[in-house]
C-alpha cells in the first residue's frame, strides 16, 4: 500500500495528495496525521488536493474526519486547491464537506490558519486575569 507523505513546515503540517488513493491509503493518512499532530504539537493542517481529479464520498468523508480529529487535537484543517470540476461534482453528489475550511491555495490556507491561531491566542489573553490588571 502506498502512503501519503506528511511534511512539517513551521507550525503547520502539509499534506499534498499526489496519487490516486485507494480507500486503505486514505484511512492510513487519517491515522498518520492524528499521530503527527500529537507528536509535533502543530496547530494547523493543510491538505492540498490540487492533484486530485476526483473526490468521491469516501475521500470526502476522510477529509471531514481529518478535520474533526484535528479539531479535537487543537489543530485547524484547511483543504486547499480543489479543482472547479471537483467542486461542481461534489455538490451534485450531495457531499457537503461538513466542518471543513477551504482556501484556494496553500498560501491562503496558511494565512487562514495563522489568523485562526492568532484569534485563539487573543481570546486566551483576554481571559487571563493578569493580562487584565496590566491594562486598566
Amino acid at each position, binding site marked *: 500500500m502506498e502512503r501519503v507523505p506528511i511534511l512539517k513546515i513551521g507550525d503547520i503540517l502539509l499534506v499534498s495528495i499526489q496519487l490516486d488513493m485507494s480507500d486503505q491509503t486514505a484511512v492510513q493518512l487519517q491515522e498518520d496525521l492524528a499521530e503527527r499532530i500529537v507528536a509535533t504539537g502543530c496547530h494547523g493542517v493543510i491538505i492540498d488536493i490540487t492533484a486530485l481529479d476526483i473526490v468521491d464520498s469516501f475521500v470526502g468523508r476522510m477529509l471531514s474526519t481529518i478535520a474533526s480529529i484535528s479539531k479535537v487535537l487543537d489543530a485547524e484543517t484547511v483543504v486547499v486547491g480543489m479543482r472547479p*470540476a471537483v467542486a461542481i461534482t461534489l455538490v451534485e*453528489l*450531495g457531499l457537503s464537506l461538513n466542518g471543513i475550511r477551504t482556501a484556494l491555495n496553500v498560501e491562503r490556507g496558511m494565512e487562514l490558519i495563522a489568523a485562526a491561531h492568532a484569534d485563539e491566542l487573543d481570546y486566551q489573553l483576554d481571559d487571563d486575569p493578569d493580562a487584565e490588571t496590566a491594562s486598566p
Partner: protein
Amino acid sequence: MTAGIDLGQPQAQSVRSDEDVVRVRQLVRAVAVASKLSLVDQTKVVTAASELARNTLVYGGGGSVEVTVVDNGRRKGVQIVFADSGPGIADLDLAMTDGYTSGGGLGLGLSGSRRLVDEFQIETSAETGTRITVTKWSR
C-alpha cells in the same frame, strides 16, 4: 497503464480489492477522455464509477466492471456496467434515498451517482445479484 487500449472493444476490470476500485477510475477516465466528454463530465462519470465500484466491492462482495464507448449517432458517450453476484438490494427505493446506508458509508453512493450520470438502470435480486448500467453522453 491504460495506454494503447482498444476503445472499440468493451474494457473489463474485475473488482476484488480497493486497488481495483482505483483501476476502475483510471479505466473510466481513459474512456471518458476518448469519448470527448468535457472535463466536468469526465469528473462526474469517474466519481460515479468510483462510488459504484466501491459498492460492488463492499456490498456485492466483489464483481466486475465493463466500460464501453457508445455512439447514438449524434453523440458519443461512456457506458459502464457494474455486476456482482452478491445478496442483491432488498429495498431499492430505500437504497436510492440520500443519506440511507446499510453499511458505514454516507449513503450517497447510489443516489449521488445517479445524479452524476445521464442514464441509470439497476437490476437486482437475491438470486442473481446486482447489475447497474450507467451512461454519460458528451454534450
